[in-house]
């Protein structure tokens, strides 16, 4: 049975075929990770897997053995992460549905590239669709967070 860490907590389960997205939402009641397309195309389901933003709808639980997963709930429950703070300062969200995934991908981007160029940001964030059109504010918030995290 796969055994992995979720937001620092050890998880063991027999639901090996279930995609992590649905395991989080239906088995663990962690509904901050969102369903948008089920085909790994939209990024709403993004979580960090060993620090990298991945599509949890395409990741069966069996692939997680020995790994560390961080969902939006594990970034900071009180919104104290610099990315979350920048998000609030820049008033990024509109409907908010894609924003868990956007924030996850932003954290992943800044971890691997702490001083991204404008182009790095746009390319790094394009796995995450936003239909409301918050891209300019997302990018501005990432720049702000990058500065705060220096």
């Amino acid at each position: 049975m796969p055994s992995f860490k979720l937001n620092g907590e050890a998880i063991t389960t027999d639901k090996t075929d279930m995609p992590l997205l649905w395991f989080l939402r239906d088995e663990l009641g962690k509904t901050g990770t969102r369903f948008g397309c089920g085909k790994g195309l939209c990024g709403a389901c993004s979580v960090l897997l060993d620090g990298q933003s991945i599509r949890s709808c395409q990741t069966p639980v069996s692939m997680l053995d020995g790994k560390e997963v961080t969902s939006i709930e594990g970034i900071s429950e009180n919104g104290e992460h610099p990315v979350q703070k920048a998000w609030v300062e820049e008033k990024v969200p509109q409907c908010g549905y894609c924003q868990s995934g956007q924030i996850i991908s932003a954290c992943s981007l800044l971890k691997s590239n702490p001083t991204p160029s404008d182009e790095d940001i746009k390319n790094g964030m394009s796995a995450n669709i936003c239909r409301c059109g918050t891209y300019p504010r997302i990018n501005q918030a990432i720049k702000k967070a990058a500065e705060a995290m220096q």
Partner: protein
Amino acid sequence: MIFHKLDRREFFKWTGITASSSMLFGIQAQSDENSSSFKPDLFLEITPEDKVKIICHRSEMGTGIKSSLPMIIADELEADWTKVEVIQGLGDKRYGSQNTDGSRSIRNFYDKMRQVGASAGLMLELTAAKKWHVPVRECHRKVNKVYYKNKALSYGELCSDAAKLAVPDEKNLKYKKAKDRRYVGKAAKNVDIDDIVTGKAAYGNDVRLPNMLFATIQRCPVVGGDVKSYNKEELENMASVLKTHVIPNFTPPPVFQPQGGIAIFARDSWSAIKARESLKVEWNLGPNKDFNTKDYRKYLEAQVKKPGTPKRTRGNYAKIAEDTPLVKADYYTPFMAHRPMEPPVSTAHFHDGICELWTPTQNPQAVQSAVAAALGIKEEQVYSHVTLLGGGFGRKGQVDFAVESALLSKEMNCPVQVVWTREDDVQHCYYHAAAAIHLEATLNEKKYPEGLLMRTAFPGIASTFVDGALYDNPTILGMNFTDIPYDIPNLDLQVCDAPAHVRIGWLRSVSNIQHAFATSSFTDELARKANIDPVVYLNKLLGPDRHVDLKKDKCDYPNYGASIEKYPIDTKRLKNVLNHVADKFDWDKELAIGHGKGISVIRSFLSYIAIATEVSIKGGVVNIERIDIGIDCGLMVNPDRVISQMEGSIIFGISLATLGEITFENGACVQSNFHDAPVSRNYDILDKINVHLLQNEKAPAGVGEPGVPPVAPAICNAIFDACGIRVRELPLKNVKLDA
């Protein structure tokens, strides 16, 4: 996560009416178990803990209305925004219309929200004045307190006495002057933002109830069809499947009835979704099985070559167009689907003769009426909770998905959440209609139109509500078709028949999309042909400052449901926003080779919008180098949300102009997900969108939609300027732009 224990007090919290305090506009204020709270109005409660609870009765899908409407109450009331708690209102006729579409929440409720705040504020001052034995005119309220000289009492301290007062006469209410506003026209923190960035925000599929089941539905791929046979036994023998159930097809017209299909019940979302891979079904495809967009486009384009039904007439176009050279152009825009990030979803619990629902809906009262009809119960027996919406754009005002959940809960005798996959969302949409538009003009010696003929053909939203409707109703026709504001002496505007073969619905800005695309492109074509600068041309074409009189032209014009006296078609405001944006854009600046500029100005949802853009063409692909948008929407309650709606409208508009397209073959939608129906991503969109707010104190007008329609024509006008190619159809991905 929303977890309800179906506690009876919680259940009746906003629906139970007991013998209580005051009447306001004939609506009895409610009380609950906490009798020392002050509840002067359906929308407002002030508690002894000094908290201000405000109901938002309009759906929150990203416009920020859940903060903006309460800001109006809080401002007049002089509430401390940090003490405000906003509660999403249940579906309840007593709130007034909750149909959150048409960009009209602010304009329809601005006055009412002010009244609620001003009335409660006065009652609190009266209470304090009575307590202190001082004249109320020497008291004033400020940020959750009432003051008299050096005395102060908080609203929390006053509320149990305030609850005993009679509600004052409307005539005695005093309202803030603009200079005294605290939140309106300024800012207040969005009430959901902290929950959104921490993942706590609760959307439709976050609802969890005890003993809840999950269901997905395989619907007939063709509208009007139903189930012939399927492998019922095989499916129900699967360990993950609890049961299957056939939903019959709707009786036309569709309205909000479910399509025919097979529901699969499981204990978790994944099992319900995955089980559909094992489904083997034969359909009776029904009357629309041969529908395809290739032939239908030809049909629409042929329709607009023949006379249609006149909808606005001025002068005598036929006469002056006889034997004179005409400029002609034909435009086409495709079917489109909304694709909100959250697909439709609904949870229902039918029990004890009532139905409770939790739905990300734009119209909870439509949920009440549609569910009541489907279940054979009364509307008052349907409790329609509204969750946050992960986007709407119009899709979630068509409440078929709520009705499905109610029917399935009744079938299973327990709570059921019906999950729509993205494929379901794309393929069972109420689509934005494909449209063909024909324009022709005869010009005077100064190269301006002496006469204009416009024909439009598109399957109407009317067909969703009236079986066999052949064209759309006056409201939808009055979106940059019948209400074009140009100063042209002879006008002949005709609508041509176009029956529907799929369900048609409202998509953000509705028929403004095709009509503004056609008219803003055609007027640009005329300007370029005349070798006159488009901004100069449009200024003259819009004519002298005036209110356009459509009655004179025998035109039935509902004006977006607003009074034409309060919201006239004002050409001065059109020219003003046009020239303002042109100025900010530096319209006369010389551009680099391969670059071009385009502009569009429209009135839409009672607001005045202009968009100017600079593009470059590189390797057959259009790049947007710069884009500016100006909006005159009268008084702005929440300016930051107006800016964000303009940013969002431009991105939504770029997406539909460059990529958005839904096609049909053999009656069925061809596309299924974001790989074959792409939308704009971060790297497709420029980071700097220049928004220019033309603020004034005029009556508030629409914000959510009017920024969308001018985007496509502005881009196509700029493309022509850059490379001489005139684009007359969308999306741009289908058009070759080799310079």
